[in-house]
């Protein structure tokens, strides 16, 4: 089945099986491997991308469900070589250790601030409940999100 999805600002027209998951379209057909597959059961959030401006888990979404939509992945955040403020905040606050959860964490965090621009620490922790960090580096991730909110 033909799908047409705007990914990181570029219109992509691809032929997919109905069972193709969005994350596989992104990684395998578009070579956008920044989006990771972690648990593959919609728990860990490593596969988080934005669909029409909202954070979603791309391992639990069929590519055909995103047909006609707009997707942003971690590769689509920087502009002219300048990192997105959330990426900058993660770097400055050491919001990552091994880095595997980071693309999903950054996408979920941007989604969180879009919906709640000035969250409390508790709201950040609750808002990121759908993203797991197995290094358990949550403290600096929360610090990064609060710093990004402040920098806005």
């Amino acid at each position, binding site marked *: *089945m033909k799908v047409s999805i705007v990914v990181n600002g570029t219109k992509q027209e691809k032929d997919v*099986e*109905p*069972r*193709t*998951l969005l994350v*596989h379209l992104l990684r395998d057909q578009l070579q956008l491997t920044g989006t990771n597959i972690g648990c*593959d*059961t*919609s*728990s860990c*959030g490593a596969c*988080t991308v934005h*669909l029409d401006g*909202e*954070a*979603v*888990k791309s391992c*639990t*979404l*069929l590519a*055909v*469900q995103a047909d006609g939509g707009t997707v942003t992945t971690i590769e689509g955040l920087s502009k002219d070589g300048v990192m997105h403020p959330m990426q900058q905040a993660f770097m400055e606050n050491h919001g990552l250790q091994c880095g595997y959860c980071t693309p999903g964490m950054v996408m*979920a965090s941007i*989604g*969180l601030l879009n*919906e709640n621009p000035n969250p409390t620490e508790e709201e950040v922790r*609750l*808002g990121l*409940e*759908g*993203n797991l960090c197995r290094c358990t580096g949550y403290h600096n991730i929360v610090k990064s999100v609060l710093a990004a909110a402040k920098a806005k």
Partner: protein
Amino acid sequence: MIPAAFDYKRASSAAEAISLVAQYGDEAKFLAGGHSLIPLMKLRLAQPAMLIDIGRIKDLSYIKDGGDFVAIGALTRHMDVEKSALVLKEIPLLAHAASHVGDAQVRHRGTIGGSLAHADSASDLPATTLALGATYVAQGPNGERLIAAADFYKGFLESALQPDEMLTEIRVPKMNGAKWGFEKFNRRAQDWAIVGVAAWRSKDASGVALVNMGSTPILATSVSEALKSGASVADAAEQAAAEAEPQDDLNASSEYRVHLAKVLVRRALEKASA
């Protein structure tokens, strides 16, 4: 993990969805947000030959004031229920429960109708709408019919919906200021409840329902009867599991679930009586 192969059709209206499902029969499943169905399909616990995508039927996503009740379109997303000013004002228990489904990413996609039609006793919204005395509207080839939440849940992942019917609307009675409590006991933030409780109480009535205490959500009528006959909250809560036959699983034994139900019903009713 990739689901088994299936054919895919997109419906642009409830009528089209119902005519498609009549055509494909038992082979077909409706796909709404997909956040119950797709995980099952990835694990190959479900292998429908045909998916009928109803997720784009925009006119089934709404929240309207129906007088004594609030009417919620079946394709309304959890995030929209959770943030609706009307639901927050008239059915705060439902708004709160919706905010505890999965996580933000899941609530952006999952729908109230999808969650109810999936009929998982471990999900928050079947029990919550049961406690609130909701009525579900189903549309089929012969028109609409109303199903009380109390008559809807038939067994494990089994509802009163016929294979050719689609859930289109959920009518939830307004709480008229009744106080409420919601308890969700789990080990990790986004997990299903090991046991959950949705409860409300007004001057002369109450509703208490249990999450994950059997193959269906359970209405704890013995608790409400005890309260009505003047029992204290602590005494009424001792009746929490009277209607339940909870299962053993990896997370908890049946006995432990019974214990949790009593404690959580007491906590929920204390909040609903404060």
